[in-house]
């Protein structure tokens, strides 16, 4: 008995150690590759391993097919050619068991993309799996289709995906919606098939389905004008209800982020609202109340809430909102300017620059805070704030603003002085109404940051002095005093 067992064991060992038995496991292959000291050594190991895998494929060894596929996926990740394994993916996909299908679909997504001819062969397998009774296998097929769907596959399999979007199973419905996003992207003509289905999915309760459906609606709007119009008529009401429900919902641990209920769904809905409301006064009016509610309900001391507020402000600025709502949005940005987080201040400055064209007066109310940002420690924020101030200047406020900027010029960073000097000179030149003020400002700038002044600026100054006979004496005295001060330093 012992002898027989030993013989069997030796025989098994011989088979495993044979040159073309492909006996190594994935972890052993990875260990061998990691042990290589040079690139040439690694190439040799990979080529030898590939030859063994090809041998096993040729011998049609089914029991180690999934192992070989796992090894091929690793080899593919290292950048080596693995095209010879593509047919093996198809065989695994066509196998009956879930483990084989799982590794087959994973290999399909990794080793192939939509350009391969082999992909045509897999369409039938996908079709069968989309009709499988096991929901997890259906999920595998939807996931694979969502990753590698080509235009031909989209046309062939679109009816199955439509049917699955009506499924009773939550996960299947969600995956079908995500898969539909890819289908619509590949074949925009199919958008009309999914409009109604997407619209009905917005009536669901499950957040996974909702966020997938909202994403699908967003894709539909990009794909088709007809879809955009359809969704404007049929979805705005649903979106408003979703946003109200999620905004008012009580504590739900699976969606909660720092006390905020599902900020991701908030943001997706707000983005879609912006697309639907843009250029459409009726939709915008319908959204007005919920946007105001979201804008006032969230506090600015949490990052998740700030993300929602940021998206809400973008939506308000992007649609045909009422002026009251716009002022509310700009005031939120004003609050952002006082936030300690550099990122929040930066995005606020960015959006205020775009808001100026919409409502200059509302932005002007935050001028003091914006000027504080010109003196910020962060260089990016300083630049943004300076650009914003440049846009805010008008005949009324040019003198106090210029005074602030010139006063800051003395203590500014050397790197920032150049930008600041250029902007000040530009403002003074553009808005000066009397020569005396112009000369005073220019002399100050030249004293504080003369090295940074561009040639054309002082050329223009010389021209002005030449043409203003009555101010030449005054100019000489000021320049003499500046020179005196410089010598004394």
């Amino acid at each position, binding site marked *: 008995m012992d002898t027989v067992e030993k013989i069997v064991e030796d025989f098994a060992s011989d088979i495993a150690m044979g040159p073309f038995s492909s006996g190594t496991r994935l972890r052993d292959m990875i260990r061998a590759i990691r042990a290589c000291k040079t690139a040439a050594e690694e*190439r040799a190991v990979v*080529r030898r391993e590939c030859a063994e895998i*090809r*041998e096993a*494929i040729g011998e049609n060894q089914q029991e180690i097919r999934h192992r070989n596929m796992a090894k091929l996926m690793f080899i593919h990740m290292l950048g080596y050619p693995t095209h*010879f394994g*593509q047919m093996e993916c198809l065989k695994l996909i066509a196998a009956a068991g879930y483990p084989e299908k799982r590794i087959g679909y994973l290999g399909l997504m990794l080793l192939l993309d939509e350009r391969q001819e082999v992909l045509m062969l897999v369409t039938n397998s996908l079709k069968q799996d989309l009709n499988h009774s096991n929901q997890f296998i259906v999920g595998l097929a939807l996931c694979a289709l969502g990753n590698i769907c080509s235009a031909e596959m989209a046309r062939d399999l679109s009816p199955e995906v439509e049917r699955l979007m009506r499924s009773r199973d939550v996960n299947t419905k969600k995956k079908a919606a995500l898969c539909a996003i890819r289908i619509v992207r590949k074949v925009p003509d199919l958008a009309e098939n999914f409009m109604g289905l997407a619209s009905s999915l917005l009536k669901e309760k499950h957040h996974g389905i909702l966020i997938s459906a909202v994403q699908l609606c967003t894709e539909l709007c990009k794909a088709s004008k007809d879809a955009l119009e359809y969704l404007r008529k049929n979805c705005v009401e649903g979106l408003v209800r979703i946003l109200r429900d999620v905004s008012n919902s009580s504590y739900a641990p699976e969606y909660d982020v720092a006390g905020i209920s599902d900020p991701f769904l908030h943001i997706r809905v707000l983005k879609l609202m912006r697309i639907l409301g843009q250029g459409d006064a009726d939709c915008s009016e319908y959204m007005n109340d919920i946007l105001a509610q979201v804008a006032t309900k969230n506090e600015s001391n949490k990052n998740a809430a700030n993300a929602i507020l940021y998206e809400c402000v973008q939506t308000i600025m992007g649609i045909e909102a009422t002026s009251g709502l716009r002022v509310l949005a700009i005031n939120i940005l004003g609050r952002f300017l006082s936030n300690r987080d550099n990122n929040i201040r930066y995005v606020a400055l960015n959006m205020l620059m775009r808001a100026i064209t919409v409502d200059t007066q509302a932005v002007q109310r935050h001028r003091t805070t914006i000027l504080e940002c010109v003196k910020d420690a962060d260089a990016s924020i300083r630049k943004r704030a300076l650009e914003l101030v440049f846009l805010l200047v008008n005949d009324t406020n040019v003198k106090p603003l210029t005074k602030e900027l010139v006063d800051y010029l003395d203590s500014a960073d050397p790197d920032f002085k150049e930008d600041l000097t250029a902007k000040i000179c530009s403002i003074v030149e553009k808005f000066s109404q009397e020569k005396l003020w112009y000369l005073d400002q220019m002399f100050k700038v030249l004293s504080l940051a003369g090295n940074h002044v561009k040639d054309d600026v002082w050329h223009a100054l010389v021209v002005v002095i030449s043409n203003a006979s009555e101010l030449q004496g005054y100019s000489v005295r000021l320049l003499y005093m500046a020179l005196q001060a410089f010598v004394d330093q």
Partner: protein
Amino acid sequence: MAAGAVSALFLLDIKGRVLVWRDYRGDVSALQAERFFTKLLDKESDAEVLSPVVHDDAGVSYMFIQHNNVFLLTASRQNCNAASILLFLHRVVDVFKHYFEELEEESLRDNFVVVYELLDEMMDFGYPQYTEAMILSEFIKTDAYRMEVTQRPPMAVTNAVSWRSEGIRYKKNEVFLDVVESVNILVNSNGQIVRSDVIGELKMRTFLSGMPECKLGLNDRVLLEAQGRTTKGKAIDLDDIKFHQCVRLARFENDRTISFIPPDGSFDLMTYRLSTQVKPLIWVEAQVEKHSRSRIQITVKTRSQFKERSTATNVEIEVPVPEDSTNPNIRTSMGSAAYAPERDAMVWKIKSFPGGKEYMCRAEFSLPSITSEDGMPEKKAPIRVKFEIPYFTVSGIQVRYLKIIEKSGYQALPWVRYITMAGEYELRLI
């Protein structure tokens, strides 16, 4: 006058990106050099056309050479001797080849620690220092990874005889001289010889004490004529003779005497070239048939074209096969053949191949139904052959004598061997 110093030395890849960088004086940055050199390469796509000495706007001079897929570049702000710097770069290449067999981007990546050590020793503060590979080997060990006690530089680096240390003692004094001739051949698909030459090397391994003087006599025609001897039929013509630096060139120029103090250990005393056309010593023909994109059949025939009294050993015939091959089925009339996937080839090995014989090999491979999507035209790699034929030289060179004279008067035994081997020996497929 004092020669200017190099600011930095860069090793760059084929696109001009810095692989290894050694800064000697701190006044030229790697970014600066890389930007300049990349721009230069863009301007002139063919590096051969470029002058090896170029200047940029910032007052930096650059000197460079190319070796395989690597550029060696020096940058300097001082008034350098361009010729000596370029020669130094060539010496850097020689040293790297001594350590790594071949200098390529890949060998640099594999050995960058040793590369930095070598650059440290070969140049100090921008001035070239030791460039002798054998001397550098004495205190830069390729396998030394741990911290070591600082070693005193050997006396040789400061001696007039820079290639040999003093005070060497051997109980038994011996000299081994190997005459190795490499046959380089390229045959096109029509069976015509495109390129053929023989590179000869006299390799010595000396185990001699003290500072011995050596004299070597060959059957070189010019030498024999200079000595007034008859040149009946044993004299040969050698071209492009190059000597190790230990050989006294002045004496060789005068009377063709090869006189030298040998370095200790292994060194190449002399290389030469034969310019006459050489018949391929081992001939290989291969026929490749493809069946319906899924099967390939290769028939290889090989013939030894030298006299029957000589025998080629360790013959290896490497026949390229498609990179997706599988299911090898191989039969040979002599030796053994196997599929070597790491080389994308079938390797046929014949241990002993007597002269005037002919052998055959037949192989069949399966191919997968999916081809590579690169769409590249099928590359036809040539057949490569390796072999050694002991006691045989193509040129007929003979060592007539090797005398060793040392003050202490010991006797040294010289051992001479001859061998012919394959160099770049390739036959293109039909």
